[in-house]
């Protein structure tokens, strides 16, 4: 399953051909999903979420596809109104004759690994519509605001012909920015009274927005928030300045403006060629994430052996220092990654 560069620099995914029966079964599922079988699509997302060999089999089937779906990311603090806004936005998209797939990510408990995925509670308007596919994902230990499988699930949805994909992140703070390297248009949701100009100028979330939404715009403090935001954005050149949209998502107010802003941003980056650049960046992030995920599995395996314990004991005795023990473990990790068992 590990990606290894072959002798001629051609990548080969280790594990190919390991279980032809499973591989064939998953390819069958993929064919059905591509023909519109939602059950097959849903099962394949679960396979991607479980990771490992099965996920690699599905990924192999996806790799040949051209990328032509458009992806919109919705991010912001917990309770900012992302899910309610997504519900209102789905209404506008469907009214515009779009078929939309949504991946809604909520956090997994670091303690129990369980999760309470509650985004659908706000999305009743479209929950039974054939034009809308909604999938809740638990973050399963990822810290960037998405789940490990969100990127590959996005590609699966693309392969299955969903032209418009929305990704709603975990409620984020300031630096959970995976959404920026996964989506084409990033919408950051704020609320009145959310902070002052210092907050608006901070690095991170505020820098990746293509569109700002001030949701709950019927609450006090709207003017100050808008002013602080505009102040922070004033130094950007006009054409790179994110639009600011005011919404009251619970009433659907402003959803039509947000949809218009998303369409305008899409048109702008398509025409300027920036979309092509972004897509390359996305691919790069996805490839890196793929390698990271597999390295992490190997690292977990390494720490489950007594190899790590031996080094820990040696550190405890004062026989080795941390960098030396680290070197030993890195060498072990390397041989683990290359061990025949994993091929």
């Amino acid at each position, binding site marked *: 399953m590990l990606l290894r560069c072959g002798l001629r620099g051609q990548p080969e995914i280790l594990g190919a051909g390991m279980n032809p029966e499973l591989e064939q079964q998953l390819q069958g599922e993929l064919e059905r999903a591509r023909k519109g079988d*939602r*059950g097959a699509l*849903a*099962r394949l*997302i*679960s396979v991607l*979420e*479980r990771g490992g060999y099965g996920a690699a089999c599905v990924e192999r089937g996806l790799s040949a596809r051209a990328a032509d779906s458009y992806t919109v990311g919705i991010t912001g603090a917990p309770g900012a109104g992302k899910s309610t806004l997504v519900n209102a936005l789905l209404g506008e998209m469907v009214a515009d004759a779009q078929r939309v797939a949504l991946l809604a990510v909520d956090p*997994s*408990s670091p303690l*129990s*690994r*369980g*999760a*309470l*995925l*509650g985004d*659908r*509670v706000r999305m*009743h308007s479209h*929950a*039974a519509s054939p034009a809308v*596919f*909604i*999938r*809740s994902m*638990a973050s*399963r230990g990822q810290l960037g605001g998405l789940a490990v499988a969100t990127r590959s699930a996005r590609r699966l949805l693309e392969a299955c012909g969903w032209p418009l994909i929305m990704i709603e992140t975990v409620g984020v703070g300031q630096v959970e920015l995976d959404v920026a390297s996964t989506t084409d248009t990033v919408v950051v949701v704020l609320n009145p009274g959310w902070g002052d100009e210092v907050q608006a100028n901070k690095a991170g979330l505020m820098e990746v927005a293509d569109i700002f939404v001030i949701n709950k715009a019927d609450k006090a403090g709207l003017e100050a928030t808008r002013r602080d935001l505009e102040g922070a954005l004033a130094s950007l050149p006009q054409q790179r300045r994110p639009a600011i949209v005011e919404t009251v998502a619970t009433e659907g107010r402003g959803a039509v403006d947000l949809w218009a802003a998303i369409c305008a941003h899409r048109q702008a980056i398509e025409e300027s060629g920036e979309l092509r650049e972004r897509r390359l960046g996305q691919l790069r992030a996805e490839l890196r994430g793929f390698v990271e995920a597999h390295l992490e599995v190997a690292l977990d395996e390494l720490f489950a052996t007594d190899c790590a314990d031996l080094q820990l004991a040696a550190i405890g005795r004062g026989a080795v220092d941390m960098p030396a023990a680290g070197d030993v473990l890195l060498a072990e990790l390397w041989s683990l990654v290359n061990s025949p068992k994993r091929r």
Partner: protein
Amino acid sequence: MKTAGKRILMAKTGLDGHWRGPTVVAKALRDAGFEVIMIGMARPEEVMQASIDEDVDLVGLNIGGHVDVAVRAIGMVREARPEVPIFVGGVVPPHAKRKLESLGVEVYPPGSQLPDIVAAAVRLTGAA
């Protein structure tokens, strides 16, 4: 227990506003390591669609006395996902309990203990 990655859909088919029960159960299931997808008050069609799209291993319905709606939801889930077990909680009158059990769903009326409900989820999802 191998509850990690097992997915449970929790829906409220009753039209009453009694949220405490399903919320407490959902949290207990989360603490046991399940991924619980809450959809709140939902029509039978929504329950069915969510059971497909979310690829759940178990469906939990809080029926709040509205047995007919629950029976319709059960029928629709059964048709879409025949392999998925269903359990039911909330205010369930005795005659309704018998009717629901005859449909092959497990019933946990008021007074049921959380550990028993969690144990049922573990058994029904094959996470034991």
